[in-house]
């Protein structure tokens, strides 16, 4: 009798262990499947963002080329003494720069921040290849639009920026560089100083 009871008890324990093991195996398989699913989703999101970024970059290139066209128009107008045309061309450059070029640049920044999050190297490349050139172009365009001699021919027009105009750019750079990255910090300071003169006071 005892033998039978012992056998049944042992069988239950063994069955319990086997059951628990099977449950554990199922859980593991499930976890792996879930992780794979999440990985696939992350990959899909990255592919989507990459495509999105490509489209945005193409758009930005288009806006940049449009600014080139207007600059050419401006050059011809100055050369040919067509002063009456200058305000209109000035407006075109101004609008194209603020509405198209800067806006598409900001969209690129927002997308890149998600795409490159956690990837310090890519983010630094993005800062060097996109953000600093963006600041340089911006300083050059603002310098042109506010040039005193140009204003003279253009009936005293000027364009100004606010404290928030380049906030996203500077914030993105500052948050992604170390405190001892003196090279990039120096560049930031130079661009901040260069843009300061165009701020609304």
């Amino acid at each position, binding site marked *: 009798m005892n033998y039978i009871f012992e056998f049944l008890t042992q069988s239950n324990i063994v069955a319990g262990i086997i059951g628990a093991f099977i449950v554990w195996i199922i859980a593991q398989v499930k976890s792996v499947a879930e992780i794979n699913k999440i990985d696939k989703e992350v990959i899909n999101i990255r592919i989507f963002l990459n495509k999105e970024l490509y489209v945005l970059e193409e758009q930005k*290139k288009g806006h*940049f080329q449009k*600014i*080139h066209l207007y600059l050419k128009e401006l050059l011809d107008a100055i*050369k040919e003494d067509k002063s009456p045309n200058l305000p209109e061309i000035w407006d075109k450059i101004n609008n194209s720069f603020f509405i198209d070029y800067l806006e598409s640049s900001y969209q690129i920044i927002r997308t890149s921040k998600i795409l490159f999050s956690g990837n310090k190297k890519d983010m630094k490349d993005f800062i060097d290849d996109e953000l600093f050139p963006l600041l340089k172009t911006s*300083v050059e365009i603002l310098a042109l639009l506010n040039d005193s001699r*140009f204003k003279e021919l253009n009936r005293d027009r000027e364009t100004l920026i606010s404290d928030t105009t380049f906030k996203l750019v500077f914030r993105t750079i500052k948050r992604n560089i170390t405190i001892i990255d003196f090279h990039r910090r120096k*560049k930031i300071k*130079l661009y901040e100083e260069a843009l300061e003169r165009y701020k609304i006071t």
Partner: protein
Amino acid sequence: MFSNYSIMDIQSFLNKVRSLISLGELRETLTIINTLLRNCPHLNEVIGKDVKDDEILAQIHIGRLEVDNGHLSKKEATAKFLAFVQIIETLSEEHSDLRDELNNALSKDLKHILQYHTGTGDNVIGQKVVMDTLLREIYKELDKKTKG
């Protein structure tokens, strides 16, 4: 450095060149120094004599310096460029004729020199060149009109 089109004094010019060096834009700096010396023949001659015993400084003087070529590191080149700027500064402080020549060049021929050598350009090289060329032309025309 980026948009100052007013007449530049020697000190601010040299400071801007130093900023450019510190940003690591040595190729651009070499072009600027070379252009500067081409427009200041007397200064060019005096510096030529001053740097003839230093191989690197002499190469900067003639505008033929290759950085990061295995023989010269960027750090060493940066130090040499800063030394070269220091020589220009010292000479302009010590010799009034050189100072006048430099001032004259900066107020006329070199007014826009730093504008077009500011280092990081647009990330699309071709577009950067187009942009720089157009801006240079526009400023040249604006100069003509306002002087006229």
